[in-house]
């Protein structure tokens, strides 16, 4: 983080950011809380306004350092009629436990597999036995586990960070480096190869991942106590994940997002004092074998992938299919980044509608 640029952001946060107005804006969507397995889970529940159109239940899951706020712009687009489609969505967008306004656990073990179970129970509480899921980042990891453990209940899974974590997939990526254009479409080769460049990028950017996966409580003290510190830490990642080619700029990629969205994200983290509980997801995911065991089991849940240009990791479809046996749709675009719902909301929604339409067809064919 460039501290000269940080100074500007901090000044804006302290002097210009309108806390009340932003809260009011978030409150335009209906918010609820309910207690699942001992934790208060906060969620947005947006029912469609439209009559005569079938509402499809859609669970939307965010990641780190985000919250349900990430979907603020896309939710109205999803609950309103869209030309060319005979369905609309009823959106449930929770905060993962330990994030945003949701309670974090006080017990070790709350890994993405367990969070998936909490989410399944949340949906059941709201009356949905079967539903669609849209997710990125840790939300996508959670949803991937849900699609594996509850395959009959996930009608379709749309992800903007698709990832197969099976050993065979990693092997394929490594072997593919021998003839990259055989492994990946020529236009997208640069997203993976050369592996040395990818490795270098990962090494340079994953220090936060490493420390959060091992000592979240240590780093958490400073980040809980200093708003400037939290801002520097979180904004650096939001920047580079929005555009990985801009580390030579003073903003490091952050200006691909709207400042209000960024400050909303920060304020939600700060107000809830949840940076520590949110970071623990890294440690829990890597502790023990539960997640890796589930990763190794493929799923037949119809899946759709969208690959934005600056997303952190990319895998070609034939590798994704190791895990997602019914990858019915995959789109790769030459723009956008990790926080798709903030950076490219319209394109995300377009792709989501088209994907769900294909999920519906997929189910029809099979019945």
């Amino acid at each position, binding site marked *: *983080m*460039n*501290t000269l640029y*940080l100074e500007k952001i901090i000044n804006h946060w302290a002097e210009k950011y309108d806390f009340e107005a932003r809260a009011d804006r978030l409150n335009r969507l209906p918010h609820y809380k309910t207690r699942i397995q001992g934790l208060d889970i906060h969620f947005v529940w947006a029912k469609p306004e439209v009559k005569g159109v079938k509402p499809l239940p859609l669970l939307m899951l965010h990641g780190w350092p985000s919250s349900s706020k990430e979907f603020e712009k896309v939710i109205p687009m999803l609950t309103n009629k869209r030309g060319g489609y005979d369905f609309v969505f009823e959106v449930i967008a929770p905060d993962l436990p330990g994030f945003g306004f949701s309670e*974090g*656990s*006080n*017990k*070790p073990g709350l890994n993405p597999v367990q969070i998936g179970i909490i989410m399944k129970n949340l949906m059941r509480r709201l009356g949905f036995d079967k539903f669609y899921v849209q997710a990125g980042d840790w939300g996508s990891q959670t949803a991937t586990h849900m699609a594996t453990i509850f395959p009959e209940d996930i009608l379709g899974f749309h992800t903007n960070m698709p990832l197969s974590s099976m050993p065979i997939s990693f092997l394929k990526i490594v072997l593919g480096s021998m003839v990259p254009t055989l492994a990946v479409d020529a236009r997208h080769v640069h997203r993976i190869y050369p592996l040395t460049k990818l490795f270098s990028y990962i*090494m*340079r*950017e*994953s*220090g*936060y991942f*490493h*420390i*959060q*996966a*091992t*000592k*979240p*409580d*240590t*780093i*958490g*003290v*400073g*980040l*809980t*106590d*200093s708003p*400037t*510190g*939290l*801002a*520097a*830490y979180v904004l*650096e990642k939001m920047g580079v994940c929005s555009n990985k080619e801009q580390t030579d700029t003073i903003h490091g990629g952050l200006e691909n997002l709207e400042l209000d969205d960024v400050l909303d994200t920060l304020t939600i983290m700060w107000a809830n*004092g*949840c940076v*520590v*509980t949110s970071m*623990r997801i890294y*440690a829990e995911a890597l502790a023990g074998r539960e997640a890796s065991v589930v990763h190794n089991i493929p799923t037949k849940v119809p899946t759709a992938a969208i690959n934005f240009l600056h997303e952190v990791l990319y895998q070609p479809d034939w590798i994704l299919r190791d895990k997602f046996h019914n990858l019915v749709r995959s789109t790769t675009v030459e723009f956008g980044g990790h926080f798709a719902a903030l950076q490219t909301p319209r394109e995300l929604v377009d792709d989501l509608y088209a994907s769900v339409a294909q999920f519906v067809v997929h189910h029809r064919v099979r019945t």
Partner: protein
Amino acid sequence: MDPPPGVPPDNTTPTSLAILRAGGRVFDAVRISKAKMAKLFFVATLIALGAPVYFIFLKSPPPLPEVDLNEWWGPEQLKTKQDTSVRPFKLKFDKVMIKDLKERLKAHRPFVPPLEGVAFEYGFNSKQMSNWINYWAEEYPFEEREKVFNKYPQFKTNIQGLDVHFIRVKPEVPAGVETVPLLLLHGWPGSVREFDAAIPLLTAVSKDRDFALEVIVPSLPGYGYSEASVRPGLGVDKMAVMFRNLMNRLGFKKYYIQGGDWGAVITSNMATMFPEEILGYHSNMAASLTGRTTLINVLGSVYPPLVVKAELADRLYPLSKHFGYLLEETGYLHIQSSKPDTIGVALSDSPSGLLAYILEKFSTWTKPEYKLKADGGLSSSFTREQLIDNLMMYWATNSITTSMRLYSETFNKRYMSLKMDDIPTTVPAWFIQAKNELVYHPGWIMRFKYKNLINETVLENGGHFLAMELPQVFTEDVLKAIAAFRDWHKQNKVKTEL
């Protein structure tokens, strides 16, 4: 054409037969005689064995890097006004800083409680914070400590554009006792305070020795009271140049050096780059980050006694356990090597944050088992005063961010490609290995670089911050080493004269 679903593949189709026949013809053409096979096998084995042998024993070392003794690390405009004076210095904990520190400590935001049944396994346990904050804000005697620190003569001098702070203690010696200079270098997250207990012991005059040590204990550039570089590039090799210049500035053409943590790496580089000046090198963190060492360690995992003495094998093997431990403990190293300025913001803004971040190291690096203790074992090996003394070096000077930049300036292509650990030195060396030090390499591996490694002392106790934790043990070993270095030089002088 695919067969219809449900029908097993048929490998007697015309296509498959044709392929098999073609394959058979190729095989016939290259059918190799038994004798040729044996020869091929022999050559392959030779390569398989020879390659590591060559790599370990025969490969020639990389060249010494070019040394620029005048590289400028300060602001450009000061280059013309070079000041070579050595000025006395006293550090000051000013009232404004102390008041602000106490306010920040007391006004901290509520800390997130640790998970149930957890001590320090997820990092610093926030239940410990109130103890520490209370102590630092209410009990720590700032004024008194300032006086104690200023009892040692301190100085500042400008080396290559940066003001370098150092303690210098020269003992009074009777006739017949020679004073010899010793440079002591600390590391991260340490400071000159690590040597507070050792300095009086090191500089003591004794009837059993014909020498006494004059110690020079600087703060590394960017740490404590030494200025930080304004431009990129100041890695451990460049710091080695700075400290060589510092010793020369003080009138020492030849001197001894001692280091731990980064100090060990910097002094190692000094012994490599300035062998004519270094009379002897003592380290309490001997490390070797070379391909050769990794290869030996990996090959040795098949049969550890080939690599390491049985009673010390568990300090290195099993590799998976040690690798897992390193992975668990190097998150800080990873983030500091890539984004020091990011993490620096929180740590320079929140004294609580700084405390948790740094004290976590004093816990785990002293003894890995301390992770399982409710207080992180922090009361077991150090006093609270000692630990806050060290923290003040970072807080009072707001130097945490610049201190962490040493990681990104060293763990990068520029420095790593110099392969300093592969360049041998004939400077006599002596290592002390604490039980819980983070890395261990058996002496014979270190001898690839340190041609005149006289001794390795292996301890059954002690951790990373050895001088601070066991000042007596540390001092005794350093004095033994210097006595041995002096003997070594006497003998070598005789040899060259004969």
